[in-house]
């Protein structure tokens, strides 16, 4: 179980992590400044297992991987959004940050709610208001990448063919 941190529509990669912090790709270093302009209290107070909740087109903007790396480095469990921008979606999967598309959950979750997410089934439970939401379950290959901690780690142990097997 974790706490929900809510964000607005069209969160772009610069709002997730401003360009001036992109000189490193160290996840912990990036996590120190994640959301620093839109929600400075996040980086200080986030706990492992917390959940990011965003609106439409989350992660739009540049193709830089720093944005999902920064969120993953902050130990958030996953991002739930109404929709994701294309390259952010891929980058998140490849670096092993689970992402769930579920507009209903986004509408029904408020800042600070207690949230439980079953990544394999896509079930999202809001313990604060008692509601449940169903995101599409993540495809098996996404879970495999997430379990390995990203595609780079996956490839250290496996052949790429095993992804879709």
């Amino acid at each position: 179980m974790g706490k929900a941190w809510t964000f607005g529509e069209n969160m772009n990669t610069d709002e997730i992590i401003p360009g001036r912090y992109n000189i490193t790709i160290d996840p912990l270093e990036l996590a120190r400044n994640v959301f620093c302009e839109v929600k400075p209290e996040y980086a200080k107070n986030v706990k492992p297992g917390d959940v990011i909740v965003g609106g439409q087109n989350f992660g739009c903007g540049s193709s830089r991987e720093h944005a999902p790396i920064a969120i993953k480095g902050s130990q958030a469990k996953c991002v739930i959004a109404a929709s994701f921008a294309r390259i952010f979606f891929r980058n998140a999967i490849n670096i092993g940050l689970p992402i769930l598309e579920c507009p209903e959950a986004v509408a029904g979750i408020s800042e600070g709610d207690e949230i439980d997410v079953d990544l394999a089934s896509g079930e999202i439970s809001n313990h604060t208001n008692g509601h449940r939401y169903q995101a599409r379950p993540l495809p098996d290959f996404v879970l495999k990448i997430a379990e390995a901690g990203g595609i780079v780690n996956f490839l250290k142990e496996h052949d790429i063919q095993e992804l879709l097997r």
Partner: protein
Amino acid sequence: MGTLVEEIFSRKAGRIVKAGEILLLDVDYIMSHDNTTPLAIRAFREIGKPILDKNRVVIHLDHAYPAPNVLAAENHRRIFDFVKEQELPHLFQQGVCHQVMIEEGFVTPGSIVIGADSHSNTYGALGAFGTGLGSTEIGVAWVTGKCWFKVPETIRVELHGRTQAGVYAKDVMIYIAGLLGMDGGTYRSVEFGGEYIDQLPLHERIIFPNMSTEIGAKCGLIAADQVTLDYLDNETPAKGKGPFEQIRPANPRYERLLELDVSTLAPQVACHPDVDNVKPLEQVEGLEVQEVYIGTCTNARYEDLEIVANMLRGRKVNPFTRVIVTPASARIYKKALQNGLIEILMDAGCTVTGTGCGACIGRHGGILAPGERALTTMNRNFIGRMGSPLSEIYLASPATAAATALTGRITDPREYLMQNAE
């Protein structure tokens, strides 16, 4: 059986595939540039396995080239060292990556070309599947030769008629971006076709897939036809690689169809601060600009420079406007030089720079001050892209850029084209 992207993927997969499926496919070429290669090298080193096929790796130095500062120079150094260490055969310092990829014959119908650059969609102009990815995936593809794809749904844009004199593919595409909006194509393949596209030469076709990125598309595609094959044969070293198949959509099921008659369209401008803030030129006519930038993977091909030179021949650009011309590639530059275009541009008062991305990403070659406004042939007008976050970028065709260069105000090119015709 399917849309163009389904047809291309079906051939690669060796079976019929449909939108929504996830595939692991072999990629033909893997492109990266000076901005994105260093992170790909990092991913590659972490994986710790060898490059599968060095011939498929293509690296360009173009984004900050020649190096405008020490950091950029160090970046280039790292890439040179890596290319030497790995004995990679394809390193280019010949201009904007996407233009050079096409000129050098790396992009062929039905092929899959991925790039660590969001405008890799450009390759769709030749009926190839091109898409932009993050650097990690490029490192992964070096090692595996493969990439995963979700087969996208397709928006078909069917274009009828012919444009009037003074209206170009760029005006049409800007208009489409205004209609579909910045996220109107997200995750989608946007397929461009119809009699308007059929009669367009390749250099004009490129605009559509190139700017499909601006509406969030995964790819922008134009089916290969005789125009494509003739271009490949006559203009690129791809000649021996064929014969290339003219893959076409077959009984496609489109998610959406957008039909448009281009014959009544006037010149268009995408205004600050969003690509879908599109207006007919007459609504912004007379707006003062401090810079005109003619360059980039969108509109700095030989024919674009020719349009500009024909309009500027024997005239002088506004003395209080920076007018910068950055040919997209060395080959284009050379041809423009041989045919006297560069001399015309210089006589008119333009500053002609070396090739590459130049001012497009605000690193060098035409940075904007706070309060300045530029009219450019670029594809993107994000806030602060060309310099100060307090500057403004307006996107238009090369002809509009040339007319605007003469007056220092946004100007309808048709006035000058008429005068030239007289």
